[in-house]
Structures are given as C-alpha cells and as structure tokens.
C-alpha cells in the first residue's frame, strides 16, 4: 500500500518532465531557425531600421510590460470582485459583475481599445486600461466558479471547527479554488499578449509594430520576424504560466 502511494508520484513526475521539456525545445528550434533565416537575407536599410537586436529587444520588453501590467491589474480587480460575488451577503453583485465582464469581452478588442483611446487619449495607460476591460471576464468567472465548486461540506466542516468566515476563505476556499483561478489568469494573460499587438495603432511600439511595419513597407523578412516573434512569445508565456499553475496547485488535490 505504501509502495503504491510512493510509486504514483514518481511515474507522474517523469511524464511531467517530458511535458515540461517539449515546449522550450520547440521554441529554441523556432528561434534558431528564425535567426538563421534572417542572417541569410541581404537586409536593406529600411529593414535594418526595424530588424536590429536593441530595437527588437525593446519591442519585446514593451510587449511584456503591456501584457504583464494589465494582467496584474486585472488580477487585483477581478479576484476580489469574484470573491465578493460569491459571499453569502453580497451575492446580488454577481449578475452585475458578470454583465460588465461579458460586455468587456463581447466588444471586439480593437473597438474597445479605440473607445478607451478616444476617451483617454493615446498612450501606454490607455492601452492597459483597454486590455484590463477586455481580459477581466476569464479571471472573474473562474474565481467565481472556482469558489462555487468548493465542496460545501468542507466549508461547513471548517466553520464547524471554529474557523471564522475569513479563515475559512483564506485557508480552505481559496486554496481549493486556486487551480481554477489560475486557469483564468493564464487565459487572461494569453489574451493580453495577443491583444497587445494592436497597441501599435495607438502609439506604443510593441511587437505589433514590427508586423505592421512589415505590411506597410512591404518587407517580407520584417513581417515574418514580427509574426514569429509575437507567436513565439505567446507560446512561451503560456508555457511559463502552465509551469506556475502546476507549482501553485496545492498538493493533495
């Protein structure tokens, strides 16, 4: 019996290592191929203006800052709202909050950011604001669902042993909802990474700028680099988020 219990996690972790190695390997191969492709091309001055190491690094940083900051802001807003919406005394806010979240996601992302920019002007802050509105729903909904699916007998058990409502929330309900909430965070992060490409239309030069330049200037190498980097970044972030998700999921579940 003891042997069975010990054997299972070992098997499990071996499979996990394989899974965890696959994506970085793929991304490395793609990265190297992209580099090899670009170095075989004769780049003209226009192309070189976009495709240079310091410039591309700045684009990536800008992109990550946009997506990262907006995701943090969404977490800070949507998780507490989601918790509130599932509390006994405040359940009436649930429909309101969900309608707002749905509204944010239903409007096409470009339209939504345009709206925000029209109201607040171009710039980094406006785009973050737009991304927040656009990606709030998955975290909000997953926080609510995650908390609602916690076995109510466990809540009763916790209260029955003398945990206060707050202790029950922080020690039992939230840890048990973590996997679902994290899945929402991961979705929001991916949405933000993808949508941040649009920022180029509003004066922020993230990876979308490279793609857009490629189209505008009719330079295929630029277009390819922009597109591959944007997709690669999305995959990398999704992969990292998956690792974090696995690490933060409480053991025993």
């Amino acid at each position, binding site marked *: 019996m*003891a042997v069975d*219990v010990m054997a299972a996690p070992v098997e499990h972790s071996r499979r996990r290592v394989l899974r965890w190695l696959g994506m970085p390997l793929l991304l490395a191969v793609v990265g190297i191929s992209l580099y090899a492709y670009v170095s075989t091309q004769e780049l003209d001055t226009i192309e070189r203006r976009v495709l240079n190491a310091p410039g591309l690094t700045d684009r990536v940083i800008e992109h990550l800052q946009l997506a990262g900051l907006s995701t943090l802001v969404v977490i800070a807003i949507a998780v507490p709202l989601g918790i509130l919406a599932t509390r006994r005394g405040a359940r009436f806010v649930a429909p309101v909050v969900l309608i707002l979240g749905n509204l944010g996601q239903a409007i096409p992302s470009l339209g939504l950011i345009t709206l925000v920019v029209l109201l607040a002007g171009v710039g980094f802050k406006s785009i973050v604001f737009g991304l927040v509105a656009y990606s709030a729903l998955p975290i909000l909904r997953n926080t609510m669902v995650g908390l609602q699916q916690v*076995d109510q*007998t*466990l809540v*009763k*058990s*916790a*209260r*029955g*042993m*003398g*945990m*206060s409502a707050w*202790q029950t929330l922080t020690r*039992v309900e939230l*840890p*048990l909802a973590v996997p679902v909430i994290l899945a929402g965070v991961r979705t929001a992060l991916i949405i933000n990474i993808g949508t941040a490409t649009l920022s180029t239309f509003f004066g922020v030069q993230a990876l979308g700028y490279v793609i857009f330049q490629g189209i505008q200037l009719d330079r295929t190498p630029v277009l390819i680099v922009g597109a591959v980097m944007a997709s690669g970044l999305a995959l990398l972030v999704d992969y990292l988020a998956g690792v974090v998700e696995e690490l933060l999921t*409480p*053991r*025993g*579940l």
Partner: protein
Amino acid sequence: MTSQATPMIRLDELTKTYRGQPHPAVDRVSMDMPRGEIIVLVGPSGCGKTTTMELINRLIEPTSGRIYLDGDDVTRADPDSLRRRIGYVIQQIGLFPHFTVAENIATVPKLLGWDKKKIGDRVDELLDMVGMDPSEFRGRYPKQLSGGQRQRIGVARAMAADPPVMLMDEPFGAIDPITRDRLQNEFLRLQQQVQKTIVFVTHDIDEAIKLGDRIAILGERSQIAQYDTPANILASPASPYVADFIGAGASLKRLHLSQVSSVELDTGCVTARIDGDAEQARERLRASERAALLLLDADGRPQRWVDAGDLSSTDLFKAGEPVGAVVESTSTLSEALNAMLTSNSGVAVVIDRSGAFQGLLDFETVMVAARSERDFYRAAKVPS
C-alpha cells in the same frame, strides 16, 4: 437514573424553522445530556437529526429556545469560540483535501494558537490512539487513505483540542459492515479512556443500541418519541412508533446488551487435569451426577470433554472431543449464543481474561435472560 449534577448539554424548547418552510424542522425539543455519556439520536432520514445536532454548535441558529453547555447559556455566545470547544465530525467527514493528515488533525489546535511542538506531539498521540502509525500516515493526503482510515482521522481531528463535548453525525455511515463493526468497537474503547460527552447521530437502531448509553428515538420534526437507556427502550417501547422502529428481534437485540458475567453460570461441572491420572478422573466423574467431565490444562484452560467410556483410554490428550463453544465472561450473551449455534453445542464454556475455566452457560439460561429482562424492567417501572 437522574443525575444531580448539571447536564453537559441542555436543550430547552429548541425550535428551528428553516426560511420559507411551513413547519419547523425541529419543534420545541427539550433534552438533558449527562456528562461523559454517549447520547445517540436515532430516527428516520429527514426527521431532523442533523439539524438538532447543528443547533448545539450553532452552525444553525435556533429560531427560538435555549442551549446550555455545562450550565452556561450559549444561545448568544460567540459561535467561533463555542465551536472550538465542541468537536464535530460532519456527516461526510469533510477532511480538507489540500491538508495532510497531520494538518487536518492540527486544525483546531492551530486556531487556538498552540505552539508547534505541542501540536506535533498531540497529532502523533491521536494517530496512535486511533491505531494509525504516525510516521506512516502523518504526511499523507486524505485521498491516499481508505474510507475507514478517513473516518478515523475525522474522529481524531474532532478530538484534537480535547473538547469535553463531541458531535458526531453518522461517522460510520458509508463503511462496509465489517470495518464498521471494528470502528465501533475501537470507538467504544476510546470512549472508555476519554469519557467525553458525545452526541452521536445514526439512523441505524442496532448501532444506537451498541454504542449508546442513552438513546433518543426521534420522530418527525425531531420530536422525542422515547429517551432512555437501550435496555429500557428494548424492554418497554413507549409507543407503537418506537416498537416499530426497534423492529423485529427486540429480544435478540437485548442479548447484545448483557454480558455473560451478568447471568448465573453452572459451576457444578466436574473437571480434571488433562495431564493427570485417568483412573482418578473416572472416579470423580462416577462420584458426581454428571455424564461428562471437562479436562483442563495446567493453567486451568478448558481442553476436552470426556465421558466415562472415554476415560478408559490412558492418553487423555486424545480422549473424547475438543471443547466447542468457548466465550469470555466479558462477551455478550448474543456472542455466547452465536458460539453455541455455530459449534452446534447446547452449552458454552466460559473462561476469564486469562483463559481459565469459570463455568458453563447453557442455552436455557440465555433464553431465560432474553425473556426475563423484559419482566424485570417492567417490574422496575411499577411505581412504588
């Protein structure tokens, strides 16, 4: 049976009407639960057992009525600190899946702010107490336990801060009969050590009879149909409802309640040492009016039955037949009866703790006990 001391738990006209419900789920229930006893609430599904129990630790707030704990009115006390004084095993056990066994057991001590060392020692002590090796089980998660082991951890967790009162809602509910029987026996042994006041909910009358010092048979809306000792309830059910609930075989159930030591044994049996002289044994058997003689070993443990014919053989170790039904004096009459039936002998050989021969118990004695107890309790109830 009334005790002069204040009851550990007193319910006074306790009523709960759930919101939007036309009838109360618990209707003006009053009850005294004496210190150190197991009080079993038993009744059909939906009669309000869980509600009654959760009114005691205020997981459910009463609509009206009062609750006293050890003489104090706790109807308006702070529920969180009240609950830390009352161990609770909920109907579904409710172990936290993201806590290890040790963390689960440590829940209430942690809430009470015990230091780490004290908590660690207590966890190990409790694991030992419920018969689970601390070094093996401390770090496991609930999903790595069997159903029976989970039940035990549930009980250990409820006892962690040594509360004087425990509430247990069908703790042995979803368990196979054999494991259930073992857990019940362990539970009784544990209670002998800890002597807590335990409110125990079940819908199984046999479990109630086995475990309860006192049984409250509940009807609809948690109305108390009868509240008495198992023996009294079996001997004289207060109403057709109670009789119906006890069901057929009340006499047999009563045999569960009496130990072999409570009836008079036949001590006139002739015995001889199995390693002794056969000739002498034959003399003693002839001198008595008995037809058979019981051979004992050097420590007085019963070995073989022999009659006069068997004693002509010189090797007593092979003479006659081995004894069939052997029961300890602490066994119940029902166990003795069972032993007689399975060994196909009309008599059981009774031994003491060390295994030494004490006397004989025959079928008729058991039958008389099953019948006479009823008359005895009837007689006891006639007002003087």
